[in-house]
């Protein structure tokens, strides 16, 4: 075919874009249900972002504290998200996470153990009981390797039966998807290029599962890698799907602040979960001054009580260092602004005076290694210096909770690229479990969609030609260096749509983004199409700018402060705003539109899991009257 010249073509039932936890779990499910499945990823197999996750995967198995169960986990998740979460997702997640973790064990994962031989669980911010299944501080590595090895196990089965490892599941590594293709309303495939050669690839497939992760590379200070350019968010938008909650970005309270070249790299929350404390330059444990009203009765008010909690959780409240991340990040931000920061512009995070050196090395080996190697700091002997870093986006593709289906027929999404599950703020450890629960559901959703399909949507040659031209454009331009444009976008988002937002600043950011769009169209990439990072970045810029526009537009509209969205000019949380979701869409990619939508109220049996006094802090009077009606009956 002429217009697909030099473009290899592959037919699949399900194309999964992304080989992190969500993508791999989705692909495993699709293959287990007999579908021919492709996994496409930008990096080598096994290097996706999930590999960097440290702390653990939250699942109410009740191994350490038998009082834990899905209802407690559900409540914690809703609280952490300030009740803006898609409650159906939060419910499914809390109910299914234990099975997903146990299944990993049957595929060869080796989690740390309790004394009676079960999977050990650790404390984390916002989780009422020790809940995170973990392996030291390298849980993400264990998760991704186990899933990777499960894919290999399936390939070995296929080799036995079909004589071909790749008969039913194949990994396309270092391959970037740049466009989704549609036949009428429905997905008909995906288009991309091999990073290695610059050659094009066409996937002819009725379903695409997006599992592309986050958007952190639109910010300067971030814990995220180069892969996080919001590709899946942008691909979904461009294909006609909708994004929700894009204003909510999690700034993790503890990123490294020094040396400058590693600024933003994550310091796991396990440091605090295992006893680490935050101090300002006066040596004060300042978090006690920042317990917000809604959490007042759940956290210790004295250091003594907080310290006792580590050994006796039944009779003490947890220390405020373990408040949800948005609270801790804002507190650190305020301390630094008030001039009580550390010499390197963060605050002190100290575990050296809290645990014996041997214990630190055992529980936090990779943190010990990371600080020693990168900052010359021995965390068993001195405090670390830390500050907030752009970490996770709560917003993403709007999906059906049960199947992961997006608004476009044939399109599914799971993991960080999807939106709703975490509301306005994600609890630590709830991502890894989210990947497994909703990865599996999206894989099953796609398989069911394929089964129900009457006729296979067709790939239209014009769309392929267009996608090719779009991808090739930067190689033909002699324009600006993409690294400069990228840097300006990162600075703009960091400074103007960061952790604390003001309407004038966000408006200014939108003006910059508008100008950047033009510059992005003209960037040039020197060199050939063979493994050319300048060209790759030039292509990614389209996505970053589009997604940044979503973030900024939604941030300007939401006039309240909640979770990962703090407005200096609207510092309070507003019950009216709680029910409203901001939904982003685009006609042709040149501009983003945002509309408001009411979120459906929680099911009766779920809302009655909460105390009236707690709900009162979040709901409108009208909603409370409804609740009283339900509670009575």
């Amino acid at each position, binding site marked *: 075919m002429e217009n697909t010249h030099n473009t290899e073509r592959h037919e699949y039932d399900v194309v999964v874009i992304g080989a992190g936890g969500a993508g791999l779990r989705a692909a495993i499910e699709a293959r287990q249900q007999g579908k021919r499945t492709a996994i496409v990823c930008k990096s080598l197999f096994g290097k996706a972002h999930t590999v960097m996750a440290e702390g653990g995967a939250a699942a109410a198995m009740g191994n350490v504290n038998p009082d834990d169960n899905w209802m407690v986990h559900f409540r914690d998740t809703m609280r952490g998200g300030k009740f803006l979460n898609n409650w159906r997702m939060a419910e499914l997640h809390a109910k299914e996470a234990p099975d997903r973790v146990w299944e990993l064990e049957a595929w060869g994962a080796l989690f740390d153990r309790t004394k009676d031989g079960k999977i050990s669980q650790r404390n984390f911010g916002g989780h009422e009981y020790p809940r995170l299944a973990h392996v030291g501080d390298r849980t993400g590595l264990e998760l991704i390797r186990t899933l990777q090895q499960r894919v290999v196990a399936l390939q070995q089965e296929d080799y036995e039966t079909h004589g071909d490892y790749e008969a039913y599941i194949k990994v396309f590594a270092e391959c970037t998807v740049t466009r989704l293709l549609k036949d009428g309303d429905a997905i008909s495939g995906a288009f991309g290029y091999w990073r*290695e050669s610059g050659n094009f690839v066409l996937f002819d497939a009725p379903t695409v599962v997006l599992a592309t992760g986050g958007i952190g590379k639109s910010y300067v200070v971030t814990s995220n890698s180069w892969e996080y350019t919001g590709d899946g968010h942008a691909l979904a938008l461009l294909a006609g799907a909708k994004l929700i909650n894009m204003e909510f970005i999690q700034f993790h309270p503890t990123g490294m602040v020094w040396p400058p070249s*590693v600024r933003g790299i994550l310091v796991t929350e396990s440091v605090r979960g295992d006893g680490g404390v935050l101090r300002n330059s006066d040596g004060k444990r300042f978090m006690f001054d920042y317990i917000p009203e809604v959490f007042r009765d759940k956290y210790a008010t004295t250091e003594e009580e907080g310290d006792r909690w580590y050994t006796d959780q039944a009779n003490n409240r947890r220390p405020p260092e373990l408040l949800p991340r948005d609270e801790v990040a804002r507190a650190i931000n305020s301390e630094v602004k008030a001039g009580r920061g550390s010499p390197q512009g963060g605050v002190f995070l100290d575990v050296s005076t809290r645990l014996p050196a041997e214990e630190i090395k055992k529980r936090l080996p990779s943190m010990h*290694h990371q600080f020693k190697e990168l900052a010359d700091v021995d965390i068993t002997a001195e405090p670390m210096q830390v500050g907030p870093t752009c970490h996770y986006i709560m917003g993403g593709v709007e999906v059906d909770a049960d199947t992961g289906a997006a608004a476009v027929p044939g399109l599914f999404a799971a993991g960080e690229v999807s939106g709703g599950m975490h509301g306005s703020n994600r609890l630590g450890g709830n991502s890894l479990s989210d990947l497994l629960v909703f990865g599996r559901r999206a894989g099953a959703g796609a398989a069911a969609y394929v089964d129900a399909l009457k006729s296979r949507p067709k790939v239209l040659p014009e769309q392929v030609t267009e996608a090719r031209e779009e991808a090739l454009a930067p190689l033909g331009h002699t324009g600006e260096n*993409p690294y400069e444009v990228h840097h300006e976008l990162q600075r703009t988002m960091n400074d103007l749509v960061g952790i604390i937002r003001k309407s004038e600043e966000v408006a200014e950011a939108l003006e910059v983004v508008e100008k950047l769009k033009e510059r992005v169209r003209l960037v040039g990439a020197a060199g050939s199409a063979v493994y050319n990072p300048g*060209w790759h970045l030039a292509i990614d810029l389209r996505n970053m700018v589009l997604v940044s526009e979503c973030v900024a537009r939604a941030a300007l509209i939401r006039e309240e402060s909640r979770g990962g969205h703090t407005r200096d000019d609207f510092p309070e949380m507003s019950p009216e705003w709680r029910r409203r979701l901001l939904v982003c869409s685009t006609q042709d990619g040149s501009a983003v539109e945002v509309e408001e939508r009411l979120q459906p109220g929680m099911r009766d049996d779920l809302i009655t899991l909460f105390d009236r006094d707690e709900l009162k802090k979040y709901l409108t009077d009208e909603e409370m009257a409804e609740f009283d009606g339900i509670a009575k009956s």
Partner: protein
Amino acid sequence: MSYKAKFKVWRGEGGEGKLEDFTVEVNEGEVVLDIIHRLQATQAPDLAVRWNCKAGKCGSCSMEINGKPRLGCMTRMSTFSEDETITVTPMRTFPVIKDLVTDVSYNYQKAREVQSFTPPSSVRPGEYRMKQVDVERSQEFRKCIECFMCNNVCHVIRDHEENKTNFSGPRFLMRIAELDMHPYDVADRQDAAQEEHGLGYCNITKCCTEVCPEHIKITDNALIPMKERVVDRRYDPLVWLGNKIFRRGDNGK
């Protein structure tokens, strides 16, 4: 604090290439990967290098720095003197795609040839009970970030292309040991280690252990014990006989 460093970086694609000279700014606290990135941003936008985490967790940025296999993101510039010329080349054992990026598909092929975790069919998910001490041995090996530097440095395949078919390299011999030591794995792995994956080629020089960025004691804790298991098995006449009988019965099916 900032100074200009001299770098020689291997550049080229499709089997041809040469070292190119660069003079580039270095700031306090930076690592070699930062310098490569600065070259991309300022002098060589198409310079190819792999990386992801920048924190020694993903194993993408393997390269040879002054001839030694290292992670670019964990090699601090302060370990060199300011007047030293730093030479950066791709891993030598794998074919170069472009600049610092090599074709590591050998490793993924070998990974696929190791029989997967094989638990007894009677244990259901959620029923696994293991003691911490019993999982620790395999856990050490599961720290592996698949940087493939151990395979890169092992003399059995470094400059010996012909051995690649019969030798899986320390990374995947260690994977076999990991599964062999897994409390619930029931597969018989010792013959395969020797016969299909080339355990016998290893003459315990420990070069792999020396380069491992995760400080895994590959040779002492994985390869040597695995060799011992193979030897015990082969020279224990009872086991040997047992095997034979089992095998016959198997074949007779």
